[in-house]
């Protein structure tokens, strides 16, 4: 089941390349985006920097972990937001929060790694439970795990502090920098998101990622080539869960709190929407999707009120946007971008061709 549009890759063992080639290979658009992201703090106010960009990067990382599973492995997992929320909870439980009777007050450099390891373990176990199924059944099992976790958080007061969850979770002060400040927090999320992006891009061309794409295209043949398909898929869950867990840590620092709502069915499905709207075929897709999603969520209220409608109906705008993208471009926003570029290229080639013919006749 090939969810993602496969794209030709012209590489299998690239020779060492110079910086110039590296710059050229990524294309201008890539470097413009990198430069823009780096200078954003000089341009934008704190609201845009954190509420829009940093939040988009965090949601983008969670959606990236789904893109890795879905785009390369053909696995649609709804458990990625739950992994992130679990990591967020663990940071609050092991670290410090306003709920002094539960939080263990470990220093951040123990609490965070332990949270990431345990959340990754949780993601791997969810994977182990669901990888023997395909398509709709994977969705059902992972959705069941996600709702089970939501209700556990909601009803358990001894560990998860029930309905109210944990507030007062603050980012650490480290190396003399308060990472909760606007600009340091922005750069922290940017670096984490960039690392996650790079890891997925790199892995997709490494033997592990190639084999994962093989299991997506033809699992039976993969077994007939000597691969253990089930083990490979579980390992893919582990890889994706590491990314989701990192995003979860950033999420709890961003929100300064975590409650069952973080792991609710709404956010779980939102991650799927973000990944699909952005596009499952490339790692940049989830980040594009997340930015669009956050912008819609933040400004649709104003838009709706301006249009004389009830401002609380912002989900309507998000839903309509989702519907429009899926209808017109099955491979998401980056699919639209790619088609536009393709058309532009073809048209300019045609024009060049006509000019040649015209020149010949003269």
């Amino acid at each position, binding site marked *: 089941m*090939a969810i*993602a549009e*496969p794209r*030709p*890759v*012209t590489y*299998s*063992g*690239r*020779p060492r390349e110079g910086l110039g080639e590296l710059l050229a290979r990524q294309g201008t658009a890539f470097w413009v985006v990198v430069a823009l992201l780096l200078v954003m703090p000089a341009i934008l106010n704190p609201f845009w920097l954190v509420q829009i960009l940093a939040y988009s990067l965090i949601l983008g990382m969670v959606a990236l972990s789904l893109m890795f599973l879905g785009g390369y492995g053909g696995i649609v997992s709804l458990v990625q937001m739950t992994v992130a929320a679990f990591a967020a909870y663990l940071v609050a439980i092991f670290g410090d929060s306003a709920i002094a009777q539960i939080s263990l007050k470990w220093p951040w450099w123990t609490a965070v790694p332990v949270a990431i390891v345990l959340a990754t373990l949780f993601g791997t176990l969810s994977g182990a439970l669901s990888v023997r199924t395909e398509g709709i059944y994977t969705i059902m099992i992972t959705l069941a795990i996600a709702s089970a976790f939501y209700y556990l958080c909601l009803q358990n007061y001894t560990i998860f502090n029930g309905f109210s969850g944990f507030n007062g979770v603050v980012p650490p002060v480290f190396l003399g920098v308060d990472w909760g400040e606007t600009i340091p927090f922005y750069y922290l999320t940017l670096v984490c998101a960039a690392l996650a992006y790079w890891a997925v891009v*790199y*892995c997709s*061309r*490494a*033997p*592990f990622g*190639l*084999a994962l*794409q*093989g299991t*997506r*295209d*033809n699992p*039976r*043949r*993969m*077994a*007939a*080539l*000597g*691969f*253990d*398909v089930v083990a*490979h898929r579980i*390992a893919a869950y582990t890889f994706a869960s590491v990314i989701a867990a990192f995003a979860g840590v950033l999420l709890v620092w961003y929100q300064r709190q975590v409650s069952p709502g973080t792991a609710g069915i709404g956010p779980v499905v939102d991650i799927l929407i973000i990944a699909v709207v952005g596009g499952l075929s490339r790692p940049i897709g989830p980040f594009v999707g997340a930015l669009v999603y956050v912008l819609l969520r933040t400004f649709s209220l104003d838009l709706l009120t301006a249009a004389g409608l009830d401002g609380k109906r912002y989900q309507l705008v998000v839903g309509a946007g989702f519907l429009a993208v899926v209808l017109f471009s099955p491979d998401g926003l980056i699919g639209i971008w790619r088609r536009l570029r393709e058309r532009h290229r073809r048209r300019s080639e045609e024009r060049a061709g006509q000019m040649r013919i015209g020149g010949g006749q003269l």
Partner: protein
Amino acid sequence: MSALPTRDGLAATGSDNALELRGVSRLFGALAALSDITLSVRPGERRAVLGSNGAGKTTLFNCITGDFAPSGGVIRFFGEDVTAFPPQERIRRGLRRTYQISSLFAGLSVIDNVYLACRGVSRNRFSLRRPRRDDTLSQAAQNLVEAVHLTPVKDRLVGELAYGQQRQLEIALALSGAPRFILFDEPAAGLSPTERRDLVHILTSLPAHIGYIIIEHDMDVALRVVESVTMMHNGRIFKEGRPEEIESDPEVQELYLGGAHG
């Protein structure tokens, strides 16, 4: 999976047959697709399995590779009982197969398909390190692509290849690593006469220690590349012999060739 014995260690069981089936059967509900198949093939032996459609030939392959578990019986590969092994464990021991309907990775390039096949039977299947162009496996993949004449299209997506090229790629995947025994399922199906000649050339020039079983309807191909023939009918073996014997056997002609040559 790391506890696999080395190839040399396995090869030491010298006198064993490459492949040995004892009383293998396979039921699909009430239908016996295979019943009581007993078959042995020596190392390096090349054999054709012939029979009409529905005779159970492909089911036999599926049982040997582990795609289906047999309903009964024992399968030994170079002396080792592999009946309960999953496919990948049999493949890692040197068994290979091709599929009647090309079974490739349409979303990956030709070279990546072959690279995966080489990686599947080597270590570090989970490696997160990208291969370099001069790495042994990448090199092996390039050589295999060359051997089946696909170098000019090696960076193309497999989904875009012509039918004959996909069939050639099927064979390349089966030759990856160190195969000891290969199952070819109708490799000539749908090929042009020229491509068939290429196929016969590839099969006859395989190293002598590699044995194979070939299912093939084209007698010109099948009988030219094997030294023994097994005839199947309704899930049973009903005749074994040398190609000449089978070709001239009246019963075989009656059943399989419809008496047309009689």
